[in-house]
């Protein structure tokens, strides 16, 4: 999976978005919410840029942010994390951030560091599981020297394991092992997803020369990078023209309509 995480191909942004969506859906379920991927995607894309996507959508926001370059900067963690996870900026959060910063800077096993920060975060701020998992992925990315973090662990870790990590002693290997297994599963899933996206992207690129319309090139570019795209009006083209473009893409088998609805459709690879 390492070469994929290092690549800065446009497709890797889409890959991270899809992983973020899958991770956020699992976390939403853990948080007692029942939004699935489709509902979260709706919350995200059917809002105005500045509007609040709601509690479920905020989890997705945090995980989409995880895959951005800016998320790797330790100096910003205290403030962005307190906002993203609605936590009080107190000694506990400061402590977690300090540990994370130290672990991120050091060398050595990436997975062990991820396990360590997750356990530390759960000990200091037990009520925020998302924080622990977010930091695990970030610290892992630092150790792996990836250009951007990849949303991985949240989709695969068992909650009971994470809870048990709090009480574990120094010699206890149960949590690091569970963590390593989760990352192994997550890496396999992520690699499969990437392979699938590459196939779809090739189909889209093969169809691209057959497209007409002023916006077609730009839209193909967006579709390669974004999880989903509503058929709204673009800067230079009308609503109808975009709709036609998407219909043509779907008939060519180059993109999918993701919602299965007859209205408020969202298109993506």
């Amino acid at each position, binding site marked *: 999976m390492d070469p994929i995480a290092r690549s800065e191909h446009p497709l890797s942004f889409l890959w991270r978005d899809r992983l973020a969506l899958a991770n956020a859906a699992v976390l939403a379920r853990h*948080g*007692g919410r029942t939004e699935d991927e489709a509902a979260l995607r709706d919350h995200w894309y059917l809002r105005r840029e500045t509007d*609040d996507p709601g*509690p479920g959508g905020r989890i997705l926001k945090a995980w989409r942010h995880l895959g951005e370059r800016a998320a790797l900067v330790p100096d910003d963690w205290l403030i962005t994390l*307190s906002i993203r996870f609605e936590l009080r900026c107190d000694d506990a959060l400061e402590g977690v951030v300090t540990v994370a910063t130290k672990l991120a800077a050091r060398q050595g096993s990436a997975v062990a560091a991820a396990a360590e920060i997750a356990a530390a975060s759960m000990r200091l701020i037990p009520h925020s599981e998302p924080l622990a998992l977010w930091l695990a992925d970030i610290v892992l990315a630092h150790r792996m020297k990836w250009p951007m973090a990849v949303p991985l662990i949240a989709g695969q870790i068992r909650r009971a394991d994470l809870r048990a990590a709090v009480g574990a002693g120094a010699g206890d290997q149960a949590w690091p092992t569970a963590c390593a297994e989760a990352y192994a599963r997550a890496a396999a899933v992520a690699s499969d997803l990437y392979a699938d996206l590459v196939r779809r992207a090739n189909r889209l690129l093969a169809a691209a020369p057959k497209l007409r319309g002023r916006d077609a090139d730009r839209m193909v570019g967006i579709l390669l990078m974004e999880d989903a795209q509503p058929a709204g009006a673009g800067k230079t083209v009308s609503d109808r023209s975009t709709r036609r473009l998407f219909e043509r893409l779907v008939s060519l088998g180059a993109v999918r309509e993701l*919602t299965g609805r007859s209205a408020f459709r969202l298109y993506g690879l």
Partner: protein
Amino acid sequence: MGRRARAKEELDTELTDLPPELRWREWMGRVEAVIFASPEPVTRETLARVVGRDCSLDLIIDDIREELRGRPYELVTVAGGWQHRTKKEFADAIRAAIGLGATAPKPLSQSEALVLMCIAYFQPITRGELGRVFGKEISRDVIGHLRSLGFIAAGPRSPTPGAPYTNVTTKTFLSHFSFESLRDLPDIELLEDAGLLSKDILLADGFPVDLGADATAVEGDDEPFERDEPLAG
């Protein structure tokens, strides 16, 4: 905003020419002044602009709180920031002197409070869906009033005919009811365990809790929204 930010850059935050004790006092003064001057809770990010880089805001806040002991007002932690608030035991005195204030908007009615609570638990939720939960239409005025109080805002649009905006609660809502996050909503865990934190289930199965009946009843307790909840801090 940009202009003000630039003016702040000129502010000497490190104050290296002062002895440590005076420096600390100056930082304390600045932090308290900023919080005092702001009508809304002030975030750490904002306060960090007026103190030195290695200054611990938490210690500053603790020291200010220490100084405010015995005063009728205090620094409380709300909605991810800090705010000056009069202590609640003086609420009666304030009310007797100036009423709820000409500026204070109409307080929430029982049914408005219930609608607000429903939004808080089941957000994002549209007015139509609220109507189905309560078994009667929720008027635009109720939503409008909650919005004018700043408790709710527009969320994502619902992919249903008419694409209505859903409603979500705001930071003001958290701050007003002294919640730090939605996790502090009363009994949220009970609802979670029952799998009820989803409006889809709620709308599909009907509402098992007695809330729908409460909405139409005139009396009944509105515990979660009692204004004089104990203040944090």
